[in-house]
């Protein structure tokens, strides 16, 4: 068990692609840490650099007290679970799980005991003598995890381990991974492009784009207070409403040709005529009768059932606003839309940053509020 410290890490591939750009990151001992971002954002390169499968162009990586920047993957005491699981097709499950132990010259009885224990804890006990090809996707995934667990490393590295599972299994595997990590208390770095996975699993998470970290923090915080427009648009199963808006001279906001009050937390912070982006999650909105003061008015166009609630799309002038409600209007009905002021975020349209009372210091991506 160990913390992972990354300082000034840069990785430039031959051909000029800069996958990771001067990145600093501390992952604490025992923490479940997710790297989230769209494809090509550098999250996998960062993970592979920690594993030692990529050699950094610049910067340092240390695991525990040891600087591992230049030491080979096998000596870093990490275990990695690959997206395709990388189970060896010619070995039985037990040998797959025990392979890292075999390489490390554990005795055969020790190997089999530990592989058996790991398999048992992941309910794979019945499958020890099967070949990977004879397992279902979910079982293969658990074998890959068992291989990492049996090895008892200081750090787990997961590279999108759930993305090859179907939706239902993914949910199951997610729960079980979180529980497993909690029981073992091993520091974990988890790469995913699925924001719901990162929110569900992480103690802390980092949102990456173009080789840099855009925001880092607890999932609740990243969800409720994204610090820039990219994070705001990336996080959330139902995307956040991001509406172009302008402050007015009388201390209000002009939004889709309508006037709404500036949300409470921002009162007195905004000069008139400033372009801002109004950000509000559909979950924080509610429907009101049309022409309620302080609410936007529009026509309900679509209501989609989410399960217990409905996602209603309201057309206000030429913008679409989404609201989650348990009482959907009939399409075509005029409605008012209002968002809880405490949850509304305003972003500067020009630099795309969240507008705060005290501007964040330049380059301070680690501010955790």
């Amino acid at each position, binding site marked *: 068990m160990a913390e992972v410290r990354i300082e000034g890490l840069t990785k430039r591939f031959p051909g000029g692609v800069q996958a990771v750009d001067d990145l600093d990151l501390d992952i604490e001992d025992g923490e479940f840490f997710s790297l989230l971002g769209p494809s090509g954002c550098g999250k996998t390169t960062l993970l592979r650099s920690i*594993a*030692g*499968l990529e050699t950094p162009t610049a910067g340092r990586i240390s695991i525990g007290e040891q600087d591992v920047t230049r030491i*080979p*993957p*096998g*000596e*870093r005491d*990490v*275990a*990695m679970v*690959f*997206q*395709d*699981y*990388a189970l*060896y*097709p*010619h*070995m039985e499950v037990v040998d797959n799980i025990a*392979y*890292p132990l075999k*390489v*490390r010259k554990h005795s055969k009885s020790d190997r089999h005991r530990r592989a058996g224990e790991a398999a048992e804890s992941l309910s794979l006990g019945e499958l020890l003598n099967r070949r*990977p*090809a004879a397992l279902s996707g979910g079982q293969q995934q658990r074998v890959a995890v068992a*291989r990492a667990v049996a*090895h008892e490393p200081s750090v787990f*590295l997961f590279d999108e381990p759930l993305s090859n599972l179907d939706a239902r299994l993914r949910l199951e595997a997610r729960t079980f991974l979180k529980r497993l990590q909690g029981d073992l208390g091993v520091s974990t770095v988890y790469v995913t492009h699925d924001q719901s996975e990162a929110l569900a699993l992480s103690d802390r998470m980092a949102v990456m784009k173009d080789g840099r970290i855009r925001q880092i923090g607890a999932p609740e915080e990243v969800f409720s207070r994204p610090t820039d427009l990219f994070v705001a648009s990336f996080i959330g199963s139902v995307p956040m409403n991001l509406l172009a808006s302008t402050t007015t001279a009388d201390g209000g906001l002009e939004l889709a040709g309508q006037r709404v009050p500036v949300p409470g937390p921002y009162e007195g912070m905004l000069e008139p005529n400033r372009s801002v982006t109004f950000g509000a999650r559909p979950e924080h909105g509610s429907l009101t009768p049309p022409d309620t003061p302080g609410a936007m008015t529009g026509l309900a166009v679509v209501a989609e059932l989410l399960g217990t609630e409905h996602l209603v799309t309201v057309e206000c002038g030429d913008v679409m606003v989404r609201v989650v409600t348990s009482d959907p209007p009939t399409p075509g009905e005029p409605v008012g839309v209002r968002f809880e002021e405490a949850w509304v975020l305003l972003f500067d349209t020009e630099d795309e940053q969240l507008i705060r009372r005290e501007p964040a210091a330049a380059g301070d991506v680690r501010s955790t509020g």
Partner: protein
Amino acid sequence: MSAPTRRHEPVRPAAPPARVVVRAVVGRIGFYAFVAVAGLFFAVPMLWLVLAPFDATPGLAAEIPSSVTLDNFRAVLENPFALRSLWNSLLLSVITTLLIIAAAALSAYALSRVRIPGRDLMLYVLLLFSAVVTGTAAMVPIFRLVFELGLINRHVGVVLVLAGGLLPAGVFILKDFMDGLPRSYEESALVAGASSFQVLRDIVTPVVRPGLAVIGVWALVQVWGDFLVPFILLRDPNLSPAAVVMFNFYTEGGTANIPLLAAFSLLYTLPVVALYLFVNRRYGFRFYGGIKS
């Protein structure tokens, strides 16, 4: 006339014109006739190979033996060169094959994993020219080369020339198998702490084993059946492989010794057939890479 074909044809909205049907039928008949003749063309020598060795007086025609005998095989056993030549053939083909498998596996792995500009072009060019190396056209320079190296009349000369000629095709086939091996297999072994050698031994080799089997059998058959290279590079009949020795089976009268040839041919063929059956059962032949999952 159209009745027999209608059964095989899917139901169509309108029956095709009679002329089209006639043409299709004639085409089919022509095709089967051609296949039958071609098949016969290959089957008759096979039939000879199976029947002649047991015939007391074999000729060049494939015919049911008038009197069945095993004397022809006794003649083979008594011939001073016959058994020795089979042993030579075995030695040459096994050693060449092992050399090809080892060298092709390593170079195919490297070529599959390392990006070199012009790699694929190089492979195609090598493949093209390799046909020349073991071909007739290059025999004079190859003879000179082997002569200068002092390898004339030694098995090692034959092994090197044949291995060199067959390697590019072997690398070519095997590279496809290597390309089909996901990198994550090796990476996961590396993270587990395996050395490059362990990765090769524990992961890569077992996974591409069907590919190794394919080029192994292919190389073995090529060397086993090769006549020209050992014929030119080996002077001593005691060193000659079966393919060359068979060429020298004459009677005292100076005509081809057909009883001896027939029996020897069968003995010469059986190992290859047995090998094919064995490998096919064990690994299954496939000439492409990829992981079954």
